[in-house]
């Protein structure tokens, strides 16, 4: 369990990093907190020729509220969010998610950008940020583009990142005062990856809801217009109206054949709905 040989660079600014990525022709990997890439290197599951360590890039460490949304640099750690060192526009929703990611040691080093780039369907941010309606800015030498989280995570360990592109920032919209938040997950033990995640942002006043079923074998199921899960309309009685059969059908459609697995996912989602309503 030792990595295959690789070269290592630690650029001091984003442009230098992007140039290195461009020059590598796709044979480079970016490392930030290294909480997923480290083990993958040691297991030789990835064998990049070059590791670009971005921990020296001050541009990616910023966290600010701008135009009503929160902009988090890719290098913000889970612990930064958990401890309230970053501003918050989600009325505690992100802080609550961050506090339950893996173990504290992982949260100290793991970054929000790294977690999204890795695109593990069982990772918390992949589901939570999709439910919050966040977007992600990707940058390369050619410029920047911005995608919704659900468009960015396209499969298990598969993102929309092109070669030479890096996650620069995450944009989180402010959670309206009328919007209810619920987040639930089931883990075999404390700190393990979840085997079921449910995330909901429900705004009865606006009759809108975003619902995410995560930790499945592919990209999370993101329902941006979730009225169908609540009997066709979203109102203050959404908890009573939550229809487990519709959720079950979504999971079946996503290819989950195992009834017990679907039941756990639906039950977790139900808990998230109940938490939102509480």
């Amino acid at each position, binding site marked *: *369990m*030792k*990595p*295959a*040989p690789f070269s290592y660079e630690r650029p001091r600014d984003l442009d230098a990093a992007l140039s290195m990525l461009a020059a590598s022709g796709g044979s480079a990997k970016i490392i930030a907190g290294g909480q997923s890439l480290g*083990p993958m290197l040691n*297991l*030789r599951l990835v064998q990049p020729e070059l590791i670009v360590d971005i921990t020296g890039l001050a541009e990616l460490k910023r966290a600010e509220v701008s135009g009503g949304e929160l902009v988090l640099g890719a290098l913000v750690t889970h612990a930064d969010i958990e401890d309230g060192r970053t501003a918050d526009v989600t009325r505690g929703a992100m802080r609550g998610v961050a506090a339950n990611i893996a173990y504290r040691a992982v949260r100290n080093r793991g970054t929000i950008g790294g977690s999204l780039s890795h695109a593990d369907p069982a990772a918390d941010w992949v589901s939570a940020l999709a439910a919050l309606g966040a977007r992600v800015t990707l940058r390369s030498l050619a410029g920047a583009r911005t995608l919704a989280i659900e468009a960015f995570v396209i499969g298990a360990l598969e993102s929309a990142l092109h070669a030479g592109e890096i996650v620069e920032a995450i944009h989180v919209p402010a959670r309206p005062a009328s919007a209810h938040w619920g987040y639930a997950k*089931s883990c*075999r*033990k*404390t*700190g*393990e*990856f979840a*085997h*079921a995640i449910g995330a909901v942002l429900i705004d009865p006043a606006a009759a809108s809801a975003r619902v995410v079923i995560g930790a499945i074998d592919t990209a999370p199921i993101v329902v941006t217009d979730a009225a169908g899960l609540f009997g066709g309309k979203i109102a203050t009685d959404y908890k009573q109206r939550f229809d487990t059969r519709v959720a079950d059908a979504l999971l079946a459609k996503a290819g989950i054949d*195992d*009834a*017990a*697995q679907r*039941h*756990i996912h639906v*039950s*977790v989602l139900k808990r998230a709905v109940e938490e939102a309503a509480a």
Partner: protein
Amino acid sequence: MKEDAFVRNEREFPSGKSGQGVGARLPRKEDDRLMRGRGQYVADIRLAGLQDVAFVRSPMAHARIRAIHVPQRYRDRVFTAADLVGIKPIRAVSGLPGFKISEQPVLATGKVRQVGELVAMCLAPTRAEAEDIAASVTLDLEELPAVYDMLKAREPGSALVHEHWGDNVFLETNYEVDISAALDAPIRVTREISTARQCMSPLEGRGVVATFDARLDQLTLHSAAQMPHITRSGLAECLGMEEGRIRVISPDVGGGFGHKGILLPEEVCLSWLTMRCGHPVRWTEDRREHLVASSNCREHHYRITVYADSDGTLRGIDCEATVDSGAYSSYPFSACLEAAQVASILPGPYKMPAYRCRTFSVATNKCPILPYRGVARTGVCFALELMLDLVAAEAGLEPGEVRLRNLVRPEQMPFDNITKKHFDSGDYPEAMRRALAAIGIESIRARQSQGEADGRRIGVGVSIYCEQAAHGTSVYSGWGIPMVPGHEQASARLTPDGGLELRVGVHSHGQGMETTLAQVAHEILGVDVAKIRIILGDTAMTPYSTGTWGSRSMVMAGGAVATACRELGERARRIGAKLLQHDPASVVLQDGEVRGVNGSVSIQAIAHTWYRRPQDLPADVDPGGLEVTQGYKPVRDSGTFSYAAHAAVVAVDPDLGEVEILDYVIVEDGGVLVNPLVVDGQIYGGLAQGIGTALYEEMPFDASGQPLATTLADYLLPGPTEVPAARLDHMETPSPYTQFGVKGIGEGGAIAPPAAIANAVNDALRPIGVELMQSPITPHRVVEAVLAARATERSAA
């Protein structure tokens, strides 16, 4: 039940004012170095010129080797079976009739029979470079059908792990006592029960540093091993060397549990390699190697029927047990110890008039199975205790009551059970009664009747077992395996300044032997434990021993230390009498000094006289001096029987399948406890492993024999948040056969938890028609069973 309702049976310190002898709750001496990170493990050893080894391992479970391609530039860095001229395969034969022999080549020849089997050895200045070389070696393998299911492996037409056997059965055993007498019992319950394959997962994996000393003409093998003397014997056989030319050093060892109780092919390979290449070589097991390639444990399957009278009295057990033994028979325990042991220990601590058990040790294309803490007892306890809860349900009794009606009673001690196991002492019903009282069975029943606000279901479960420990010659000679324990030896030597050195052949890898053996010596000689050094883990410095396994060290090495110290004390007493100018008959050794009516002389002064002032010695002094080696066996060597009753309360979420342990009680009787603090530690550690067996640990395989849990993200071990603060209660019924009445207790903590927890889960879910008979109890298994029960209810309605 509140904590303060529990009264601990603290012993008075028997050795008087110093409080260091047998029974003292002494903090562990070794912890000063271990807790400060100053322990020295194999991977800490640095020798000049050391190079690292990485192995090319089979990626397939079962395949014929067509060719091994080594790049030209690495030809002198890569070694295969063709290079190992004269090295014999590992053979661990059992003398039980019908046992089929496997030969495990240290590097594969002809076929590979498990994923991870060693194929080639790669040498480089660092492990990373050695892994680069290993990655450059390509194997041309012809894949064969994998034998991955032990039940299918028994069927005719199965692919064969060892073709010349004609089937896949290492050994079949049959044991019967009048089963026909049970067949008319009014209660008859039949089930299939199984336990998952596990990895033992000590904090420290295996590791080897080998070097050859030309001056001594001696191979030195540093190895993370529990049984260095046995390792040496096995190495000598494989290498064709005299044992005197081999020294095995086992330094600090970070947990063994059985994983470090076998001769490894890697140990043989590195021994050969250092002699071939002329410099020290090292291999350190990494976690992936541990999980997929090394050794596994626990995979049992039972078809079991229990017969009982309508009042719950056991009439008999009929069982067919199968154990997945993996591809090879491991040295020295063999591939059949586990299954054949099932037949002899399945009745547990219960009386019954009829019994039948048929066992199969089955070869598969998996890692060899090794005896893990508790050996077969964890599986046996799981099977039997789950069945007893079903008998209780049939009889309409509390599970505890069924046990109380069938447990061997104190007035029957010593007791020979239906498989001729000799129970030395104990009060099993009392342990069960205490556990039931402590867990508060009535208040739990009341709580259950009210239901839980959060929708979870509460359950309570109990289990009880007996642990045969330190069983010796008469037991193991019957197995006919390469290792039969005899007299355990210890050497005791006073130093010129009055310190004491003890040399023992057992090893300590978490058991605290450096403390407890010093306590035994202190009990007899009165030497301050701070001045007692325990020397272990080195064949050059310790007497021969089969090592640390089978919960034997305290009984055997403790007994040997006591015996050697008594003789040493006697010699000191005679010298002391001379120095006091007393008749030897009129002086006694007490609290570290020889006392007569006119005064006393310290052991320190006596040692000083022997070594430094021989002119003052009596004329008839023992010329052996103040250095004694003695052998010891208990009065009976059929083993001590410690036991414990466990009780667990769980909350089960039927929709998520999550199980939370709310309370856990252990009432344990390990005979006289040399150090209750160390015993508590043993029990807590065992409990954590038992919880792993119950709820988390499982190595699954696919149909091609691939192990699927290749990292600790997939192979789940319980962590601090999964292990509750268990409440312990000690009973202390002395063994009539051992020094001080001690019993072996090292494994018990890991035996009963899977049964207690499973019974608690089933107690919680039985009202909704759910029954789980398989470990581990995962969320998926719980929910699957809940959904099946709901479907049954719907179709019935």
